[in-house]
């Protein structure tokens, strides 16, 4: 039997680290110590780039990570996070793991004020969706990764290696990707769903939900209109898509606009069909086998929830944390539990040992055909204030 703690790219041990720190200890300065205290608050501004490369390589005692709910493996009675415990065991760093991101917009609203004043938000890693990471980077709210602490970065999927906003992945690393499509109960809906248009069928009046994130919902409608949402989006096309959703609101067709919280009513049967995220439905299927997930024929949306280090976070420890989750064995444990699309190469092989069926699930390891049929919403269009306001008007606020 293989030692579960043996990993291919074993990171340096805590002792080695301490030794290394002691050797470089002459440079241990007060600001370094402050930074090492990780989010004590009031660390002024962003670290200048030159400093980021000579950051103290000392692990802090505890780091704080903000992520989305149900986005990491848990034990059977949901009291523990096994991979986080393994991380603590191996590095001695405790993880204060918060599941406090429910919506990118809302999360940004919460962190924006302190970050704009150059203050720490008491978090070492946050995991917003790519477009928000791009915004945070543009606003100067992020710190560079310490790549010397992330040898496992070689495992990053090639397709995710150079996004437009961070071409060399200097500030960010993907956590998981997701696909937006339709989650539904075929029995209640009365057949297969293949398009978003079908959600507007009067027979489903009051029994559907859509996502309150514009890029997911409008993205699917644009695709159905034959518009590629990853490219430039024409205002008339956008208005047309918005008008379709608005009409559905006026007709009382749409029961709610939701974040992750569509899962409750969908599993209880109050809602029959939802615009949904792939991993959520895979998780629900374990308890509600009646539910299906499908990507509309005209295409689905996708994006990457991405780890970044905000101002005030401890760069070295955060980078060590990222490195840990880029080990395929660890990534496999996470993927086997949360069923989203992992950005770590070699996970498919590693997951076969846990559950061979998972390796064949196209929602976790999408086939090339699936990947060709999903689109990432144009980041500039997401930032378009006019578009944002029109969307907010539709969802009633």
């Amino acid at each position, binding site marked *: 039997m293989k030692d579960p703690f043996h990993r291919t790219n074993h990171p340096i041990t805590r002792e080695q680290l301490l030794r290394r720190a002691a050797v470089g200890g002459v440079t241990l300065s007060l600001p370094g110590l402050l930074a090492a205290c990780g989010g004590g608050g009031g660390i002024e501004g962003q670290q200048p780039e030159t400093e980021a490369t000579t950051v103290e390589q000392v692990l802090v005692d505890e780091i704080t990570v903000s992520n989305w709910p149900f986005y990491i493996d848990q034990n059977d009675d949901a009291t523990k996070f096994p991979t986080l415990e393994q991380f603590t065991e191996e590095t001695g760093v405790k993880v204060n793991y918060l599941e406090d991101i429910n919506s990118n917009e*809302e999360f940004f*609203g919460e962190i924006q004020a302190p970050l704009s004043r150059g203050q720490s938000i008491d978090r070492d890693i946050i995991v917003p969706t790519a477009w928000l990471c791009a*915004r945070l980077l543009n606003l100067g709210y992020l710190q560079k990764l310490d790549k010397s602490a992330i040898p496992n970065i070689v495992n990053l999927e090639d397709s995710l290696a150079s996004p437009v906003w961070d071409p060399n992945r200097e500030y960010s690393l993907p956590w998981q990707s997701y696909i937006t499509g339709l989650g539904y109960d075929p029995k209640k809906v009365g057949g297969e769903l293949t398009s978003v248009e079908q959600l507007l069928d009067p027979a489903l009046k009051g029994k559907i939900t859509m996502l309150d994130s514009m890029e997911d919902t409008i993205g699917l409608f644009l695709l159905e209109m034959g518009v590629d949402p990853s490219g430039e989006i024409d205002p008339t096309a956008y208005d047309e898509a918005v008008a379709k959703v608005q009409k559905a609101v006026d007709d009382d067709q749409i029961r709610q606009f939701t974040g992750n919280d569509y899962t409750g009513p969908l599993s209880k049967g*109050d809602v029959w069909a939802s615009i949904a995220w792939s991993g959520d439905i895979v998780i629900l299927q374990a308890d509600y086998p009646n539910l299906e997930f499908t990507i509309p024929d005209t295409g689905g949306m996708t994006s990457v929830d991405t780890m970044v280090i905000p101002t005030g976070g401890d760069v070295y420890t955060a980078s060590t944390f990222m490195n840990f989750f880029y080990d395929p064995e660890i990534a496999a444990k996470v993927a086997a539990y949360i069923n989203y699309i992992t950005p770590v190469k070699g996970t498919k092989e590693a997951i076969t040992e846990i559950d061979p069926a998972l390796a064949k699930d196209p929602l976790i390891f999408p086939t090339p055909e699936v990947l060709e049929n999903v689109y990432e919403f144009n980041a500039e269009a997401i930032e378009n204030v006019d578009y944002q306001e029109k969307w*907010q008007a539709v969802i009633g*606020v």
Partner: protein
Amino acid sequence: MTFLHHHRWLTPYLLLAPGIAFLVVFFVVPLYYLGYTSLQEGTVQVGYTFTWAWDNYSNAFDQYREQFVRSLEYAGIATVAALLISYPLTYWIAFRGGRWKNLLLLFIIAPFFVTYLIRTLAWQNILSDDGLVVNALQLLGLVAEDGRVLATSTAVIAGITYNFLPFMALPLYVSLEQIDKDLIEAAKDLYASSTKAFLRVTLPLSMPGVIAGTLLTFIPAAGDFINAELLGTPNQAMIGNVIQSKFLEITDYGQAAALSVILMVVILLLIVVYTRLVGTERLAG
């Protein structure tokens, strides 16, 4: 001590100082800041600048009149409903509760040991489309066969009524409980019928409770957003939902602050009219 002896006039001010300091820090400063923010414009990307942007107010009013009206309507209906439920309830506890008074009061308050959010989420289950309540209502013909309760304005108003009921019931109870029972007896001795005794003695004496209760219920209810979000659809969005999303989601702080100021002023005006009509001196008992 000698200092105070010589400056006797200072004593009341010194006694007031903590209260005034509290009001300045937690009321005047935030209020000033809210007003200041409401006249700013800008976005997160370019920053926010103070420009006397009165546009925020006119836009807020034009765009969200519907949500304003809806909020006042829902809060008004919920307040009346809470009063109609609380009055007989607290009347009975105060006059017939006997030694069970405290226990019965505890029953009113007990559900509120559970957090607001959880209680409201529980209503999602209670009013579920295939749940007992809705099925029973369908049997009675009160809800159409394919109808629903959850995600309607009925559910939102019911949620608000339920969540703010103690704010109505407790002041009502206090004023009913304080009524001297001999007065009612005296009215009856003077040949007043039970109805007349209630209308001429009990009801007027309980007015301070009614006024305090309606204010305590109406004001927070008008600004509520949890019930509309969890029990309604986009067509039930209240002004609280708009303010919440403007502040937290689209970070349009200027307009969010303008909406808050408008809501505050509207409520203030309503209260002035209301207390003029029923008389403020009654509030003091």
